[in-house]
């Protein structure tokens, strides 16, 4: 029997937390004196009041939870957060359709960044702020946040942390999970503040600077402008955003090491080195093709456009300063492959994650060696340590399930009448939490025209991708519910 009382208690408490953040966006609405203020307050009330009642009733719920409760509560939290988080959009009529509001909110929390909005600049500041804030909250993770601010979750927190931040091997920064969560959030907040200041100094308005910092650090990709970051033509601003997208796509544990003066650890990290060189290598290829094919006039612009799109896609942020659909087919294909890569494990990025690709490649390569030496013991090495076979198996299963989901989902999307490239783009971008896709959902277009059912399905894929497949998929397996 699952501990439902505890699950409900967590949901209740977290609703209160969500309500408090809604009050924050209400405060922004108040500052700008726009019409949306009452909607923020109503939404906050709808979250806080029932949340408090549930928490008060169940405050004595037993706190011992197992793995099952961990997985279930994390999936539930994300769904409930999106259902309540859509209230400001929906009530204020910024997004009149419930489906669209849910899509936009889920896309926000999972840091996907796919939007159904056709005229972003027309929205009031409070709504835009909320739209960026949900990405920031989803970036480091709702459970991680709650562990940092609600210490009582302590014991059960472990199970939830593992379900929300799966990764390959759990990295703890401190023996206590709540302390680990606090440290992660402190780094996250510090980077966000740094970026805000830099963007502000670089000429963005303070409001735009905050919103873009929120969505950069979360590798979310919501912009306050319809044209995304392309609106800001200043190279300085674009380079700042590139830098912080790159940082957000790096393992936060490495940031912690770097801040403690252990730069050697960062440079020697195998995942980081691969992540770094893939980014640089692919950017140089794309940049040179852009320049020599005559698409872009100057070397600097070609390099910047290329680097920006590459970092934006590999970290699964999804900002755009150029439309990769109008590039040569050769480049579009490279862009498609980048979508599968994802940032580093332990970052705010989505996708498969570089470490899994590295392990997959190494294992596949060693398989050749194993054919020649059938009796040799050839372990997969990562950071110069042998990786346990069960971890390699887990990685293989992850990638197979990932591809399987993409395949099946493409069939489902095409049944709704979408073209091949649109189906592939929409599915890959949703499960990878990227944002823009291909075909009719490319960087210059949006998801407004996707059929209603398709929007719900894509929103589901976003959640599956954000929680790294297993957490959500597990709930659909009979093992989970059987005794």
């Amino acid at each position: 029997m699952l501990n439902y009382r505890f699950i409900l208690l967590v949901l209740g408490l977290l609703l209160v937390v969500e309500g408090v953040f809604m009050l924050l966006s209400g405060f922004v609405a108040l500052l700008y004196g726009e019409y949306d203020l009452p909607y923020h307050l109503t939404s906050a009330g709808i979250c806080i009041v029932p949340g408090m009642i549930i928490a008060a009733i169940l405050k004595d719920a037993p706190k011992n939870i197992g793995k099952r409760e961990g997985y279930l509560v994390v999936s539930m939290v994300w769904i409930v957060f999106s259902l309540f988080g859509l209230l400001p959009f929906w009530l204020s009529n910024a997004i009149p359709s419930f489906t669209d509001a849910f899509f936009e909110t889920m896309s926000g929390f999972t840091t996907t960044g796919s939007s159904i909005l056709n005229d972003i600049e027309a929205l009031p500041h409070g709504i835009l702020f909320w739209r960026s804030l949900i990405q920031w909250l989803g970036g480091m993770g709702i459970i991680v946040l709650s562990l940092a601010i609600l210490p009582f979750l302590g014991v059960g927190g472990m199970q939830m942390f593992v379900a929300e931040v799966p990764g390959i091997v759990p990295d703890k920064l401190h023996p206590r999970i709540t302390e680990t969560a606090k440290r992660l959030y402190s780094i996250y907040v510090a980077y966000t503040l740094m970026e805000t200041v830099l963007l502000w100094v670089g000429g963005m308005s303070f409001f735009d600077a905050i919103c873009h910092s929120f969505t950069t650090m979360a590798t979310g990709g919501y912009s306050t402008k319809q044209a995304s970051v392309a609106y800001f033509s200043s190279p300085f601003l674009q380079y700042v955003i590139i830098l912080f997208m790159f940082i957000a796509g790096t393992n936060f544990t490495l940031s912690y090491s770097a801040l403690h003066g252990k730069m050697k650890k960062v440079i020697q990290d195998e995942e980081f080195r691969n992540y770094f060189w893939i980014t640089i290598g692919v950017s140089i290829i794309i940049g040179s093709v852009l320049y020599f094919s005559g698409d872009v006039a100057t070397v600097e612009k070609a390099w910047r456009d290329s680097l920006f799109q590459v970092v934006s896609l590999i970290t699964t942020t999804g900002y755009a300063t150029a439309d990769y659909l109008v590039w040569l087919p050769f480049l579009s294909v490279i862009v498609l492959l980048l979508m599968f890569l994802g940032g580093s494990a332990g970052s705010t990025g989505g996708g498969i994650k570089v470490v899994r690709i590295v392990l997959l490649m190494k294992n596949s390569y060693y398989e050749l060696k194993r054919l020649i030496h059938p009796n040799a013991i050839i372990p997969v090495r990562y950071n110069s340590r042998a990786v346990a076979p069960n971890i390699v198996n887990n990685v293989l299963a992850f990638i197979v399930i990932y591809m399987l989901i993409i395949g099946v989902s493409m069939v489902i999307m095409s049944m709704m009448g979408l073209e091949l490239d649109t189906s592939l783009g929409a599915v890959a971008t949703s499960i990878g939490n990227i944002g823009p896709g291909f075909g009719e959902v490319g960087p210059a277009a949006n998801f407004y025209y996707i059929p209603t059912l398709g929007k719900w399905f894509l929103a589901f894929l976003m959640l599956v991708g954000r929680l790294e497949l297993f957490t959500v998929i597990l709930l659909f397996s009979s093992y989970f519910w059987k005794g």
Partner: protein
Amino acid sequence: MRIFIAGAGEVGTHLAKMLCNAKHDVILMDEDEEKLKQIDSHFDLMTIVGTISSIEDLKEANVKSCDLFIAVPPYQDMSILSCILAKKLGATTTVARVNNHEYLLPENKEFFRQLGIDELIYPEQLGASETVASLKQVGTRQMVEFSGSKLVLFAIKVRDNALIVDKTMAEISAMYETQQYNIVAINRHGETIIPRGSEVVLHNDLIYVLTTKSAVDQVLLDAGKTQFEIKNVMILGGSRIGKKVAQQLEGNYNIKLIEIDKEKSAKLADELERTLVINGDGRNLELLRDEGIHKMDAFVAVTANSEVNILACQLAKKMGIKKTVAEVENMDYIDLAENIGIGTLINKKLIAASHIYRYTVRAHVSNVKCLISTDAEVLELIAQPGSKITKDQLKELKLPKDVYIGGIIRSDSAILATGLTRIQPQDKVVLFVLPSGISKIEKMFN
């Protein structure tokens, strides 16, 4: 407090769990990833795969920021080495587990301190001492002495025949003009109760009683325990504990030791001059009969296998032996063994934990004892001048519900605490506390 535990064996894992539940920051290091995995997924602590005698691994694990370093690997040389390294790398206090009693001799203490080892523990030795102590005091499950046995804590199983059964705490203390003993806790169906005046003692309760040396007989009388003398002891299992018990007892008691392994038996017979070592399987009833089990006064089962120990004691009880002692290393069996009436239970892990526990309490501790069959602790704390506990009479102080102040030792005389008692600075206070109350009590004593 940041605590580093090197070695995830039985003792290490138990310590990690216990200290983790007591809200300490625990880091557990071992070479074997499998051992760590199990505990990592159930407890809020950090596990590190590494060699505990490797300088690089210890540095990497940030051992210099640790307040307490506990080395409990399987081998004592490893344990001593890793403590020395940890101390040099900056750990504040180090504790090493050893299995050579000469290291524990007082004259060697300074030598080990210079090496960088602050404390040595030898769980088997402690287990043997505890066994011997329990044989000397029949009728009780566990006995803990404070300040040279001026105050004594007994764990006693109450049966129907006890004088105090079905009486409330208030009625029991009204039986005497002056306080003879304090019932500091009751363990009923595996749950620990800190009794207040209206609490009733029931049949089958395990009560913890604190008393002065002079009232010991009174306590046993009231609990319905008759005294008998132990002369013949049978020990099952020539483990380290078994050997030590035999060594300590063989002068004054008739000892028979049964060991299954032939070579080991021969070696034991060589070392234990006045003990009769028998090579055979202790589960064989014929053998036990031949060796006159019915004539025994006490039966001590200390094989490496907890199940065997429990069953053998059950068997011995059936044969009419009044006092049985079993080593039960599996924590989950303790409640079970307690309920089926095995007399005294010995657990190395708990004993080791008791000794290490004192370093983690942020008050001036002179003694700590973790009790078997309950997760509570008995502490002997020194009241600091100006601390809150010395401010008023006990009944006026708002004492937490999970604490019971049992007695006080004031300049060599023992006083049993009542509501009217007022604690003075430098008093040694013996108190019974549940894990939830430890941080509250720390504050009151500082």
